[in-house]
């Protein structure tokens, strides 16, 4: 059974290698979709295997932990792998129909490498492997960001590369310091050895370095400025993949380390995370209100949503961690969908600037309706997945006595609604400005099945989760309990 742990890494690796060799557009499309579908399938197998509350552990090459490389899956990691695979599949479908991305030399293989890096990061059982998988993910994202090579993209990529390199440098420094202190990098072994060695300067320094490193990668306040510069510039399919996957891997790493390894001084570390989360939510949502381009608004909103996720980590109860999981699944689905809808709008009108859009509701009621569902879900209106996700996060805040944080989360939800209504009024509802009416735009192309299918599937998921949240809530509750059970993780990996 534990052999499945290698699948989310090996499948995209094989697909990427084949995609480099294959030239024909059609074959590349089939390969890319098959790879992503298999990735998603292997994620679902892992979810099924971990659903009972156990861990899967694979000692690569037969070298037992803590000496060898261990791949570890718990329910949280398995859910993340499955959702990432699903998003990879749907974005792949979208890419079939647009921008000639499937014929591009680098997009199809590197999208697979991105999935491989994410899969590896979710399943890594030691700190150094986490670093390596992060680098795989980042190098793929560096190149994907520059697909098309427009000047704005290159400018955004310079910032992205520089700040991410700095984050990786901090990450590596923390690896070196922790190894010097404890003589191990295996997460379970670290978790076991650090408490015997009370929060000394070295441990606290490493924890701070890792918090900053993943704070940068997750776009936490005050490290988020690279995100609005980078995300809106590449082709829409790349933006959508980044919006769904990239920052979430940073959030995942934060949660993994600050539930398993650094829990000696919760009063300080997790209180700091709580404060940063609240600041992230507020600055993100206020920053978004000032933007004019569709993808810029949505990109700055990602920052605000990241705040909700780390908020649950800061609150530090099993219910709050379960809420984080629900929120992450909801946000990955809805955010990707909104970016894909923006891509559809861009195809219809040739622009994504609010000032030059308008009248979409009259001409394309179907697409407008789908946008409205996702936008209202993002803002947290019932009966959509966003309502469920926000409800569990805010309830966990109140139950743990963090009244202020809960109130801020409620207020930020209202401001999100404001931004979404602004997009709705400007792009969909108002009369179209002169010259932007149908047919007059520079690049009007009809929407085909490759656009409709992913948007419809993702919208269906957000509605389904909203109407029937029980299965997801129950799964998340189990995953949250599992995250709090450090002894269980250590036992599963080290076999004691």
């Amino acid at each position, binding site marked *: 059974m534990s052999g499945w742990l290698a699948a989310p890494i090996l499948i995209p690796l094989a697909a990427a290698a084949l995609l480099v060799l294959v030239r024909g557009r059609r074959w590349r499309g089939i390969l890319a979709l098959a790879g992503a579908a298999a990735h998603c399938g292997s994620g679902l197998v892992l979810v099924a295997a971990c659903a009972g509350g156990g861990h899967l552990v694979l000692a690569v090459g037969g070298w037992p932990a803590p000496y060898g490389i261990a791949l570890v899956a718990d329910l949280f990691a398995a859910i993340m792998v499955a959702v990432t695979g699903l998003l990879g599949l749907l974005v792949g479908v979208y890419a079939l129909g647009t921008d000639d991305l499937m014929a591009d030399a680098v997009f199809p293989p590197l999208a697979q490498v991105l999935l491989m890096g994410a899969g590896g990061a979710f399943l890594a059982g030691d700190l*150094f492997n986490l670093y*390596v998988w992060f*680098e795989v993910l980042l*190098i793929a994202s*560096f*190149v994907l960001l*520059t697909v098309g*090579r*427009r*000047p*704005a993209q*290159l*400018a*955004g*990529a*310079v*910032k992205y*590369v*520089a700040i991410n*390199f*700095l984050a*990786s*440098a901090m990450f*590596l*420094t923390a*690896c*070196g*310091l922790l*190894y*010097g*202190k404890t003589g191990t990098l295996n997460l379970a072994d670290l978790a076991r050895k650090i408490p015997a060695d009370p929060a000394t300067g070295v441990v606290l320094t490493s924890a701070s370095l890792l918090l900053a490193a993943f704070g940068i990668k997750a776009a936490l306040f005050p490290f988020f400025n690279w995100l609005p*510069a980078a995300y*809106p*510039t590449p082709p829409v399919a790349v933006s959508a993949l980044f919006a769904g996957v990239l920052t979430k891997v940073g959030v995942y790493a934060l949660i993994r380390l600050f539930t398993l390894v650094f829990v000696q001084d919760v009063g300080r570390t997790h209180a700091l995370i709580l404060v940063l989360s609240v600041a992230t939510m507020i600055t993100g949502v206020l920053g978004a209100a000032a933007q004019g*381009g569709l993808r*810029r608004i949505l990109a700055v909103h990602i920052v605000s949503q990241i705040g909700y996720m780390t908020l649950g980590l800061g609150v530090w109860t099993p219910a709050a961690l379960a809420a984080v999981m629900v929120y992450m699944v909801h946000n990955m689905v809805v955010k990707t969908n909104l970016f894909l809808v923006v891509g559809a709008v861009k195809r219809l009108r040739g622009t994504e600037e609010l000032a030059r859009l308008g009248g979409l509701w009259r001409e394309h009621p179907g697409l407008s309706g789908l946008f409205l569902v996702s936008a209202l879900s993002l803002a947290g209106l019932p009966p959509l997945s966003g309502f469920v996700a926000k409800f569990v996060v805010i309830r966990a805040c109140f139950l743990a006595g963090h009244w202020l944080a809960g109130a801020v989360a409620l207020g930020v939800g209202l401001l999100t609604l404001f931004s979404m209504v602004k997009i709705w009024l400007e792009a969909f509802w108002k009369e179209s400005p002169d010259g932007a009416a149908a047919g007059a735009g520079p690049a009007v192309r009809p929407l085909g099945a490759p656009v409709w299918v992913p948007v419809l599937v993702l919208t269906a998921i957000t509605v389904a989760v909203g109407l029937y949240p029980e299965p997801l809530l129950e799964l998340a509750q189990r995953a949250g309990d599992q995250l709090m059970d450090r002894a269980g993780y250590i036992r599963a990996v080290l076999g004691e």
Partner: protein
Amino acid sequence: MELVMAVIIGALTGVAVYLLLRRSPVRLVLGIALLGNAINLLIFTAAGLSARGVPIVAEGAAALAPPHPDPLPQALVLTAIVIGFGITAFALVLLWRMHHATGVEDLDRLEEEGP
């Protein structure tokens, strides 16, 4: 020896941070390269320096003879060097292309050329 290494690491990091904060693209790349090397040295030093022996099991023996250095940091640093090399190479190409596409030599002016 640790003291000498600490001073070298500190100096390299200081120079790297100074270069990263400059506005010239070339200095940004140099800063990236130097910071990567400073951290590689840090991993070596933090894991313990030792001048004696090699971490290879002698023929016929079941385990390493006692005075030997820890082989793991060497493997870590090797991996980090490869990754650092890749990132430096990519950053060079990216900045060169950026310069060609936008004509910017001052990174502070990059914002104005943006979307």
